[in-house]
């Protein structure tokens, strides 16, 4: 019997990572309908110096909103995008997010390249396929893809590309590059 109707939908996760203000929200919004996903988290003292807490010293919890997007490929096949909270104190959320993830996009800003080191390290260690997308901000000095590859000390097979996260076609290209990369890793492993 054909049991297509009772089949569970196939859900794939793609993570979007990178430093604060690098364009994660914009990228997710360029390619999908974006919604803020609320998670309620305790602010620890490790947050001091990262967030501006002046005047809110009495506040000990905060609501974190994670960018959440959904691309429906067809009925029963959906790609979910999650913009990972950038700060180190949210890394416990990354473990959950990256479990079973198809891959990750690390957005880099060449003016603050060190901001994406932790993301690159994280995905390298977990063996999660990832691509580095260099967001070309207006007026930002452009570096070549090769410079970025060297600066981040990336393996040769990790795709590095320039992009403009505001443009849908560019965001699309980044996602396609990632899935193709995941597919290559899969077929070379078999």
């Amino acid at each position, binding site marked *: 019997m054909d049991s297509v109707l009772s089949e569970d939908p196939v859900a*794939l996760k793609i993570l979007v990572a990178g430093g604060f203000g690098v364009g994660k929200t914009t990228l997710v919004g360029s390619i999908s309908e974006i919604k803020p996903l609320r998670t309620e988290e305790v602010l620890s003292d490790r947050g001091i110096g990262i967030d501006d807490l002046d005047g809110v010293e009495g506040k000990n919890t905060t609501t974190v909103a994670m960018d959440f997007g959904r691309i429906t490929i*067809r009925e029963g096949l959906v790609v979910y995008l999650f913009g990972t909270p950038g700060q180190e104190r949210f890394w416990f959320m990354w473990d959950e997010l990256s*479990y079973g993830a198809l891959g990750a996009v690390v957005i880099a800003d060449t003016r603050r390249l060190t901001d994406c080191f932790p993301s690159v390290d994280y995905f390298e260690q977990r063996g999660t396929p990832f691509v580095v997308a260099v967001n070309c901000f207006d007026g930002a000095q452009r570096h070549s893809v090769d410079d970025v590859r060297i600066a981040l000390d990336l393996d040769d097979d990790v795709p590095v590309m320039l992009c403009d996260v505001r443009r849908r076609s560019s965001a699309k290209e980044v996602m396609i590059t990632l*899935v193709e990369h995941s597919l290559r890793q899969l077929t070379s492993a078999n």
Partner: protein
Amino acid sequence: MSDGPQWFDEEAGPVVRPYALIRGRTRSSGDMFDLVATVRTLGDPEADGDDLGPEQRHILRAARNPISVADLAVELDLPVGVIRVMLGDMRDNGLISVTSPSAGGARSNERILKEVINGLRAL
């Protein structure tokens, strides 16, 4: 008589804190539900909903068609942690089923990845 002073507005945040909906608990059998796990209502949401709170009834209605944990959190505008506790209870009571995406199952399926690539190209 004039109206009394306005004590609070939107800026004050919700009048009922989200965790009050689940009696202050932050743990349940739903802890490990993946954000993209599929939630499905079992049985008839209208018939089963009588003793439930409005949020739980909302979940039963929303999950008549399979829906992800993350989508439910957005739909109910509640933190994921709160939704997980509710879902854990509701599953334990046989009201819903929660199916985890088989880790690596879909991502290790060549045909599905090719379908995704083609689907993205067609966007």
